[in-house]
């Protein structure tokens, strides 16, 4: 792992305006991502975890500018992504690719797999037709399929194989960073393990960095170097894999960890009441306080800031 930052987000915000009433007046904002800062080093995997609706996917999409950020900076290898024009943005998207959760709907059902993968190369203007064909076949082999599968259509594959195709498509343009948005959550456990292993192998071979988004901490553990726990648009805790699993500081991380069903363990669970509140109207003070089991009076008044409690372990909680 090299030591310089490949990607850095600084105080990134993405708000969606909510309008209503007769004159469609602005009535507030859904603060999907609300002041998030993090970095990913070259060849590193950052796992991003949180419940649905906490802004993980929006954050991933904002980095690629599939969603325009409202505020903040995204620095990719020294340039600010938020200021790029269309042409430079296309260049960026060659180096930063995305894999989606649902391989069924992220592949065009009327295009052969070969065309789907080749299209990425075509758009980036890489190679002639013959070279593209070779590259497609090479990529399919790389992800554990066969070259001749290029002539088939998505419906002829199982969901695990389709996810492999999604990975092949992302890989074809030789990216440095892949944003993987819940790539295994729609798959069976046995297939999930196959895909995770594939992603580990590819990381080794191509020196890829991943932003790995998932709601399952156990999956995140297998692949990440560092983990960021997100809650309602903000990062609650960020640290290496070991500190998170052995010494989780934020009560939310503790609850997430204890919610994981484990073979051979019965009911020693910390049950988290309720669900994620609306990001349109987040609770005052610490956003987690209505569900927190270690809540203090200060939590409903002041919002905690993300601070380093030693050794790069960042946590946003009044307890520390």
């Amino acid at each position, binding site marked *: 792992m090299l030591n310089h930052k490949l990607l850095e987000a600084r105080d990134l915000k993405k708000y969606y305006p909510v309008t209503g009433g007769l004159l469609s007046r602005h009535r507030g904002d859904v603060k999907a991502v609300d002041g998030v800062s993090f970095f990913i080093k070259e060849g590193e995997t950052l796992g991003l975890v949180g419940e*649905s609706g906490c802004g993980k996917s929006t954050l991933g999409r904002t980095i690629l500018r599939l969603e325009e950020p409202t505020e903040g900076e995204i620095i990719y290898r020294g340039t600010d992504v938020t200021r790029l024009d269309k042409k430079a943005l296309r260049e960026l998207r060659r180096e930063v690719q995305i894999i989606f959760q649902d391989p069924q709907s992220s592949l065009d059902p009327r295009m052969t797999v070969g065309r789907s993968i080749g299209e990425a190369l075509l758009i980036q203007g890489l190679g002639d037709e013959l070279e593209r064909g070779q590259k497609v076949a090479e990529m399919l082999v790389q992800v554990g399929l066969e070259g001749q599968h290029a002539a088939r259509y998505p419906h002829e594959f199982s969901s695990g194989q389709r996810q492999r195709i999604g990975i092949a498509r992302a890989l074809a343009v030789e990216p440095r960073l892949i944003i993987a948005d819940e790539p295994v959550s729609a798959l*069976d456990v046995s297939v999930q393990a196959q895909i995770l292993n594939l992603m*580990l192998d590819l990381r080794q071979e191509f020196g890829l960095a991943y932003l790995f988004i998932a709601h*399952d901490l156990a999956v995140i553990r297998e692949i990440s170097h560092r983990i960021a726990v997100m809650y309602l648009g903000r990062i609650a805790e960020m640290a290496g894999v070991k500190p998170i699993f052995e010494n989780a500081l934020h009560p939310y991380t503790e609850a997430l960890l204890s*919610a*994981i069903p484990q*073979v051979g*363990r019965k009911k020693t669970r910390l*049950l988290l009441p309720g669900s994620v509140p609306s990001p349109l109207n987040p609770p005052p003070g610490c956003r987690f306080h209505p569900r927190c089991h270690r809540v203090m009076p200060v939590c409903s008044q002041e919002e905690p800031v993300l601070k380093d409690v030693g050794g790069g372990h960042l946590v946003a909680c009044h307890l520390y």
Partner: protein
Amino acid sequence: MKETILSVRNLKTYFFTRRGTVRAVDDVDFELKKGECLCLVGESGCGKTVTALSILGLVDRPPGRIVGGEINYDGINLVSCLPARMRQIRGREIAMIFQDAQSALNPVFTIGDQIVEQIKLHSEKSHRQAREMAIDLLKEVGIPSPDEAASYYPHQLSGGMRQRAMIAMSLSCDPRILIADEPTTAVDVTIKAQILDIFQRLKESRQISLLFITHEMGLVSEIGDRVAVMYAGKIVEIASVTELLTNPIFQHPYTSSLIKCLPGITQERERLESIPGTVPSLIDPPSGCLFHPRCAKAMAICREKEPPPVNVTKGHTVFCHLYSAQGMKK
């Protein structure tokens, strides 16, 4: 010994398609005891859901048909009983919860109305009584402010809340058996824990028998009393949960790999173990033991002969040549 409430004997449900006969459920045999939770585990496409649908008489016909076996409930064979009787049993005595609450609920009626409809269909209650009962049920499954929630449409509820509404609906006629088909697959981990907790409570407070379908071994260990592992339309292992997890010497190789490929939070390792390949086509299944092409411990005999049931300990049956007399000899 607890009494048996439902027994499935040699059940065979086939689908007759243009490409051939799909043996989705092939000779499945198990019992559900009163007040217990039996987990049915396996990968997608191994026949778990078809087994559940067969019990409720909901297999689409054509192309599907139950071609053999018996399902005995309360002295009746559900396979051959009249459709009118089946309708009475379905919902009132055996209820089902589907994986995808979003598509199982009607989007144009409020959840309160949907529960009321179900109650009125199966009992003589007045509208007001039914409404009160619906609200009580919503409260029982832990929906906050149930009065208000009853007037919501499904789209106004979150995934976890919708799943709870489904559970409330399935409880409306106080069924004796509840079949839950992957009820927590589509929800977050924290919500999953909450829903498991509801099932746990129901089991204790209502003495319901649960048939819990899932592909996650972790869940089995938390909620199950006994477990039946299915592979390619057949049961390959059946045992109590404690026996299965604490006595790995007699585990079926398929069961052990299902456990090993789970990403864990307790142990550290370089790579996850995965099972090579996928579930075979049930139109043209492999010869002998159906798992042998993917099995790390496959022997010559596995290709030739279907493994017989072997009783390794009391209540623990494995279908594997590793433990059969013939397999041992070699």
